[in-house]
């Protein structure tokens, strides 16, 4: 009897420790909280160029993550990329004339969608579309622009 108790105690401790570790990993080490993203509303925006934007990338306002990128697809009516954003329900007072841009976090970091607030009194609702967008910067275009302007300058001299 004594032995069984010791075994049960040891097993219980082990199982509790294991589940505590799992719980800690899920809640403290990883980012996505349960339920985040499941609730909220969707807005869309079209971009000429999304660059390396990925589904699941953060949507941020002034650096605060307010949502996630839910889908990226090609819109054949406009010949642009349509990005669907899911905004957390808590952030329901984003002016409807806000602008969206695709930026890079850090020098080598992943890309994210940044929303800059507009001045309107009406707010974005589910299914709304952001009218003002700024595309991702493609490094090759930037370099070629720089090179061509340099060549043009040298041609003038």
């Amino acid at each position, binding site marked *: 009897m004594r032995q*069984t108790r010791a*075994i*049960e105690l*040891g*097993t219980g*401790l*082990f*199982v509790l*420790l*294991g*589940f505590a*570790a*799992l719980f*800690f*990993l*899920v809640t*403290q*080490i*990883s*980012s*996505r909280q*349960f339920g985040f993203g499941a609730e909220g509303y969707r807005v869309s925006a079209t971009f000429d160029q999304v660059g390396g934007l990925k589904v699941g990338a953060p949507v941020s306002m002034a650096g605060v993550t307010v949502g996630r990128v839910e889908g990226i697809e090609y819109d054949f009516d406009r010949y642009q990329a349509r990005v669907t954003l899911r905004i957390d329900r808590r952030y329901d007072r984003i002016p409807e004339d806000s602008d969206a841009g695709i930026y890079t976090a850090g020098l*080598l970091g992943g890309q994210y969608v940044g929303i800059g607030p507009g001045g309107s009194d009406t707010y974005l609702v589910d299914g709304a579309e952001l009218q003002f967008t700024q595309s991702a910067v493609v490094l090759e275009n930037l370099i070629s622009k720089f090179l061509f302007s340099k060549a043009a300058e040298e041609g003038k001299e």
Partner: protein
Amino acid sequence: MRLATDLFASAQATVRAVGAYALFALRVLAAVPGALPRPGLVIAQVYNTGALSLVIIMLSGLFVGMVLGLQGFDLLQRFGSEESLGTAAALSLLKELGPVVTALLFAGRAGTALAAEIGLMRATDQLAAMEMMAVDPLRRVIVPRFLGGLIAMPLLAAIFSLIGIFGAQLIGVQLMGVDPGHFWSQMRAAVEVGDVMEGAIKSAVFGALCSLIAVHEGYHALPTAEGVGRATTRSVVISSVIVLLVDYLLTAVML
């Protein structure tokens, strides 16, 4: 000609061994519901395979994490991004090192014990005695050990990963001077619940495979001292190879 027949014979033996494993796995799975009314047996095996492996798992996790901290820091420093150390350590521990190293240690620490124990039961005719008393040894001996391994492995792997992350933190932050805020916040931003789940699924699969291989080798050991020894060795060798092979397949599927 001789070579050809030998090759054919060994190929046939391999196919037969795979078939024997599959049939044994099916018999064990079919016996699982019959073993559930006696959870005490399973708990005793969770204790044997899990709780008793705790010290070796925690120590290994700490040192693997510390090595990751050191190596990761050295590598990331070359790119000037040592703040990503937390992300690198957490993801490699959760997705790969945690499940795989735990499974290898599990095969060595718990798998050998299972194979030797069951092999000795076979050698001393204890299994035959159970059958004489109309006790199904599969239900009474094999299934509790299989379930015990299946339950213990994910928990062991989670403990391993967690301690490993703290080990990496110990070296990276305390010794090498990575900013603790960057270490933890970048880790939290990059690691998702799916990554934790990937590790948990992997370790559950490895736990099932390792304990199945150990009980199979023990159950089918030759009833001699040499046979038990050979079964023990084979269970470690087969488990290790299978774990690494299945790890590749699972990674390819889940990535």
